[in-house]
Structures are given as structure tokens and as C-alpha cells.
């Protein structure tokens, strides 16, 4: 039991290497092709600079080296987990990302929890009451939420819940004026996280609801479920348990696939809600031509995505003993 697992893990983790290399190359190529560099940004923001000074800065950043030298140096650094220094934020990239990553993880985690919980609930509901008015209403709801642009929903939510009703804060992660600790801090963060997490979760909520409903109906069919309902609560519960089990596998796979897109969604949500995560940091890094920072974010988030995919594969295998841990990529 242990050695196939270790073999699987080793193979999958090794696959991270070409991905990392690919991302570094992609990032490097793009930023080299871009007009302007970080020295332009720094000089522009500072208000002025002489060409000599700018040349000096470029030399100190290593920007005047031939491309392949810069790239090789960067790869060597990455291998030792030295992600470089952000010259615009005056901090090591790794520290910057580590400081902001938990906020994004919290947001993503909360969003997934909401999406899964509500998605399963609504999916089950619409499957049980298939073809009834509830099913139709939920179908429409699912379709509309799927179609809504996330950032737009966030804006509308701020207008309603923050500006008009004053129920929830309009942005940020904590109430900075009051230095909360412990439980009070947790409650404060939760209040601030509610709107952004819900906003981020809506798209996925729609997807999961649909998926659960389809999976349940696929297994049993509408008639079977209605019969089970007629037979009584106990029968229904057993049927539900089986049906959910069937839905679990595709659900788990889907969650794995969507981690990358969750990060993308986080960029927009963090921007609208002023959430101090790495999504917004990535946007700022692009604007500032902060190559080191941007690459660091892309690398770490890709590693995160890969790790989650590995976890998902493991979970999948555990849930369905028929599945063997394959080494190659899924088809």
C-alpha cells in the first residue's frame, strides 16, 4: 500500500518541475517583450532621474545582463527558494507573498466551503423535487448566477449591504482602528470576509448545484427518486446517501480543476473589496513591471494548484477504491 503511494507522489511532484520551468520561461519571455521595465516605473514615480542613474539602477538589478544569463540566474535562485527581491516594494518577494498569501487562502477556502455547502444543498433539493416549481426556480437561479460577472456582483453587494444597509464593512480584512485579538479578531475577519467570499463563491455554487443534481439524477432517474420519496423518509435518506456518494467523485475533481480559476477570480474580488491578498498584489506587480514579484506569485500559486490537484487525486482514490493511482496526467 505504501510504495505505490510514494511512487505516485514522487511522480506527480516531479511533474511540478517542468511546469515551474515553463512558467518561469513564459513569464520571462512576456516581460522581456514588454515595453518599459521596473526602472522606468521607479524613475517615473520618483519624479525624475538621470539616464546615468537609471543605468546604474539597471546594473544593480542585473537588468543589463544578456537575457539567458538573467534567466539562468533566476532559475538557480528559484531552486534554492530564493525568489528574489521586489525593488519596488523594497522587500524580499518570498516575505511579501507569505505575508499576503493567507488572506487569499482564507478567501478561497471560505468561497469553496460556501459553494460546496450551498451547492450540495441546492443540488439535492432540486433533485429530490425534480420537475417541481422549486426545481425550476433553482434552475433559473443557477443559470443566472453562472452568468453574473463576479466583480459586478461584488460592486452591487457593496452598494446594498454596505452603503445602503450598513450591515457589513465595505472593504479591508480587519477593522484597523480597533486592535482586536483572539475571538474578537476572528469575528472581525469573518464579518469582513463574508461578502467577498460569497461573491467569489457564486459562480462555483452554480456549477456545483448543477453537477450534484445531474449526478444524482443520472444514477437514479427522476422516477426512482420520486418513488423513494413516496416510500418514506428512511428510504429517501438511504437513496440520498448513495446518490451523493456518486456525485462526490466528479465534485471533487471539479474542485481540483477550479483552483486555478479561483485564484483568477480572487484578483477581481480582492480588487473590488480591497482584500489584502496576492491577487491584488499580482495586479500591482504587473503594473509595476515587478518581474520578480510577479514570477514569484505565479510560481507559488502554480505550486499550490499542483499540490491541490495531487490531494484531489489522493482523495479520489480513497473515495473510489476501483481507481488506481495513475502516474501520468489525467486524460
Amino acid at each position, binding site marked *: 500500500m505504501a510504495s505505490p503511494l510514494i511512487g505516485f507522489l514522487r511522480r506527480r511532484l516531479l511533474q511540478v518541475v517542468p511546469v515551474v520551468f515553463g512558467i518561469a520561461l513564459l513569464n520571462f519571455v512576456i516581460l522581456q517583450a*514588454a*515595453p*518599459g*521595465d*521596473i526602472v*522606468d*516605473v*521607479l*524613475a*517615473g*514615480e*520618483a*519624479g*525624475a*532621474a*538621470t*539616464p546615468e*542613474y*537609471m543605468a546604474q539602477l539597471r546594473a544593480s538589478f542585473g537588468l543589463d545582463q544578456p537575457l539567458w544569463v538573467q534567466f539562468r540566474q533566476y532559475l538557480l535562485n528559484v531552486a534554492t527558494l530564493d525568489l528574489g527581491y521586489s525593488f*519596488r*516594494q*523594497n*522587500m524580499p518577494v518570498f516575505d*511579501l507573498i507569505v*505575508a*499576503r498569501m493567507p488572506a487569499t487562502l482564507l478567501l478561497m477556502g471560505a468561497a469553496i466551503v460556501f459553494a460546496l455547502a450551498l451547492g450540495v444543498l441546492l443540488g439535492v433539493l432540486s433533485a429530490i423535487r425534480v420537475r417541481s416549481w422549486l426545481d425550476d426556480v433553482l434552475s433559473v437561479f443557477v443559470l443566472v448566477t453562472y452568468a453574473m460577472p463576479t466583480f459586478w456582483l461584488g460592486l452591487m453587494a*457593496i452598494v446594498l449591504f*454596505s*452603503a445602503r444597509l*450598513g450591515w457589513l*464593512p*465595505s*472593504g*479591508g*480584512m480587519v*477593522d*484597523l*482602528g480597533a486592535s482586536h485579538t483572539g475571538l474578537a479578531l476572528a469575528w472581525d475577519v469573518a464579518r469582513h470576509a463574508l461578502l467577498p467570499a460569497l461573491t467569489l463563491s457564486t459562480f462555483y455554487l452554480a456549477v456545483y448545484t448543477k453537477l450534484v443534481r445531474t449526478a444524482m439524477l443520472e444514477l437514479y432517474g427522476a422516477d426512482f427518486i420520486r418513488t423513494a420519496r413516496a416510500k418514506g423518509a428512511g428510504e429517501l435518506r438511504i437513496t440520498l446517501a448513495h446518490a451523493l456518494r456518486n456525485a462526490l467523485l466528479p465534485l471533487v475533481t471539479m474542485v481540483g480543476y477550479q483552483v486555478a480559476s479561483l485564484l483568477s477570480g480572487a484578483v477581481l474580488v480582492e*480588487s*473590488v*473589496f*480591497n482584500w*489584502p*491578498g496576492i491577487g*491584488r*498584489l499580482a495586479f500591482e506587480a*504587473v*503594473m*509595476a*513591471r515587478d518581474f520578480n514579484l510577479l514570477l514569484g506569485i505565479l510560481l507559488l500559486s502554480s505550486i499550490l494548484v499542483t499540490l491541490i490537484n495531487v490531494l484531489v487525486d489522493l482523495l479520489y482514490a480513497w473515495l473510489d477504491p476501483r481507481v488506481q493511482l495513475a502516474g501520468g496526467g489525467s486524460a
Partner: protein
Amino acid sequence: MKRRQLLTSSSSLGALFSLGIPLAPIAYAQTVGRTPVRGGVLNVAIAPEPTQLTSANLTTMNVGMVSSKVLEGLVSYDLDLKPVPALAESWQAAPDGKTLTFKLRPNVQWHDGKPFGSADVAWTLEEVWKKLHPFGRAAFANVEKVETPDPLTVVIRLSSPAPYVLNYINTYGAQILPRHIYEGTDVLKNPANNAPVGTGPFVFKEWVRGSHIRLERNPNYWGRGPQGEAQPYLDGLLIKFIPDAAARTVAIEAGEIDVALGSIVPLTNLNRFTDKNRYTINLDDGRYLSTIFLLQFNVRRPHFQDRRVRQAFAHAIDKNALLKVVFLNYGKTATGPVPSSVVNYYSDEVRKYPYDPKRAEALLEEAGFKKGADGKRLKVTLDYDGFGGPIGPRSAEFLKQSLARVGVELDLRTGDTATYLRRIFTDQDYDLMTSSLHRLPDPTLGVQRLYWTKNIIKGAPWTNGSGYSNPELDKVMEAAAAEPDEARRKALIKQWQQIVQEDVPLIELIEQTWVTVSTARLRKHALQGDGLFASYADAWLESKG
């Protein structure tokens, strides 16, 4: 539909005089109070997040807004832009203008306990202001020697008079750094840039990136109130970064923010703060900067070499409409390169360019740009910084509309700051560009750089990007820079404005007002012309209720 055409064909911008846009800007100065209240933390909003917390080597506004609470300069400026003592108690210029003597304030300490003295001033001037600071390089170019005969006296010897220096040396333009921390290190990479040590009323406590900066009261601050009470009155400052503009409005209304500096509250939202009992809107904080929004030609381009074309463009733009539509009347139309707030040197006896589309078209015809079959005479690009706030995109859209009426098609190009700067100052590959530039209280410092032949430097941002070179003007500007006699200097600068407005290598459009929105509970003893960079030593919060 006909009615749509009716609306668009007439000068329907007059229809703007209705519904929500006030004719005159809402303004009442920050209330000057009498009895200070001790205590409380002031919540300040700035945007975007600064990149460092010292201003000695750069001119970025949001950096200055923070650093000015921790580090200080020799003077600050009152509403008339006259210098007020800060770290310098008194100063004197020799009659020939070649020597400046400053007497420094005694018994001042840095936040780490070391004494402040003339050595700090001398070192910062020679190593930082003169070598690194964008304006300082010009301001202190003539400095031959800095003498420090005793710890409280600084004597600056100049090769030729520099009358602009006294108009300039506050914490934004000439910030004094602690020599004992910076000497011998790489100034730009010194960690004290992110955790500053200063002499100011507030001590740096923490900077949580993406979130806030926390400053606390300096118990050993030298400042004293009118009754001799210790300053600062506030317990501390909490400076928050709120990137989303609408969120700032919401935050002020919710009481999460006490003061929002530097026009970061959208101008269109200012009508929510008209209740004088709850809010104060201040329009004077940015007087020192005297910023002007401009449209610049790349005069290297053949179609812009004819002066008539540039003058035509000037006639085609309705500055008053631009002021109303884009700036919502917060500001003034500009008549030339020297802003009207610089009372000593401003002159409006220059060639004017009233809104006259017919004249614009006539000039373009004269210059040889006839209307083609599609009604277009000329097609050019306009570059603007799309990420420096809403003024860039909106003014670009406005200009596109205006110039379309005289047959000039503008192709708008945006990009982020790096692309924009590269295109204009390094590649010099553009037709038109817009930007906002600070003119400062002295034209030699803030205006000359735009028109001077010697400031056409490829690769360096914010230099003479238009490529305009006029030897006669160069002589006038250089003479004005070195002229110690005020009356003669004033005459030279008047001539300067007249030449520039004849040639219009760039069209000076709007004198921008920097708007500060604050709670009415915030009071100060005196208003400042450089209020954006006020130290807040004399600020306090009235109690609620």
C-alpha cells in the same frame, strides 16, 4: 433619431449646468480651532500605497504625505506660500544672493535619541538633495560649499544667486535625513527608508504592506502650542490604503476614515460631504505644488512643427468645459506655465487662446491641413497614463471629442505607467500626451524643466519631452534663475510666459486643485499652503457628540 443629433450638434455642454454638478466647487477651509483636545487616533486615507517612507530622494506625493509626519524640513509654508519656521528658526540671504544662512532650532532630537544638528542638514544637502532628488538637483545645482560653523548654524555658499531656494525647502522638497543612520550606506537601499527615523511629531511604529502604516506620538517633540502645551495632541495616526475609489467615500461616511488626502475621494462624490457640521472640504492643501494639467506636442513630428497647428489645437479646446466636465470645477483654467497661485511671478499678459473652433479650423487650413473626403484633416495619437487616476482617461475622452469637431481624429493609446514613460521619454515615439506636473512656488524649479533645451534627455522621465528648443527662451530662463533682484526677475519671468504662450509647445490646460475631505472634528491651529505635507503636530480631533 433627430433629437439625438440636435443634442449633440449644438454646444450642449452648456446642458451641464444642471443636475448635480455644482457651478462653484464646494469649499470651506479646514476649521481653525482654538482649544486643542488631547488624545485620539486620526485615521488617514491615502492612495496608492507608497513605495517607501522617506521623501529625501523622490517627489512622489503619497510618499510625502506619510513621510512629512515623521521627518521634517527647514521650513513649511503658509497659505500665501511664505516660509514658516520648522527645523530652521531663522534664515538670512546675503545681499548678493550668494550666501544663505540658516539658524537651526536647538534641543531637537531624532526619534532614536541622538541630537539633531547642522551636520545632518549639510550631509543631506550634499549627498541626497543635490545628487538624488529630482527637484533638488536643479535647486541646489549652484551650491559650492556647505559650512557648519556650529551645530545650530548652516551656511550655504552658492556660485551664483539661487532665489528659488527659500520658496522650496519644506519636508517635501528638502527633507532632512539623520546622518548617523545614512552616512556611508547606500541611501536608496537603506532599510530606514521603510522604517524612518525623524524629528517629527510622530514616530514610526509599523508598516503592514497592503494594509496600513501606524505612527505614534513622539513624546519628545519640540513643537509647542500657543499656550505652551506639548505637541502633538493626537495619540497617533493610522494611515490606511484604500485602492478602490468608491470605497473611500463609503469609509468616510461610515466614520472609518477621518481625513482623505490628495483628491482621492472621487470628485463626483464630493456632493455627499456638503454638511458643514460633519465634514470639511479643503482646497488649499496643494497650493505649494501648484499642479497644472497639460497637453504636450511632440514637436519633432513634422505636422506639429508649424506653430499654427499647435495654436489651432489650443483654440479647439474649451478649457472651461474641460474644467466642468472632467474636473467638476475643482481648479482653474490655466493661462500659461506659471500657475496663478504663484502670485509673485504670475502674469496674464500673454497671448490667450479662447475657445474658437472656427479660428482653429482656419489656422489648420492655413497650415495646409485641408479636410479630406471623410471630413478629417489630421490623424494623431494621444498617449495618457491610464492608471494614474480617472483624470487621464476622462480628459483623453474629452479631448478626443473636442478635436473631432475641428476635423482632427485622436487615436487614444493607454498603457500602464512604464509603457507610457518609455514611449514618451525613451522612444520619443508619440504625437500628443497629457500629464499633470507640479510647478512648485518657483518657476525655475517646476516650469523650466519643461521648456529648457538642456533638459531634453532621452531616457529620463519627466524631462523636456516635447523636444522644444528655443535659444531665446533658454537665455531668459537661465537669466531668471540667477537674478537676485526681485523686480528684474519678475520681468524676466513675465517675458518667459509670453514667449511660451506664443509658441505653445505644450498647452497648459487646467490648474488642478488638490481636495482634502475630512471630518469636521479635525481642527488645526493654522492652515498651510503645503497642507498635504503638514506634520499634524498642531492637529486635534474634537470629541464626538
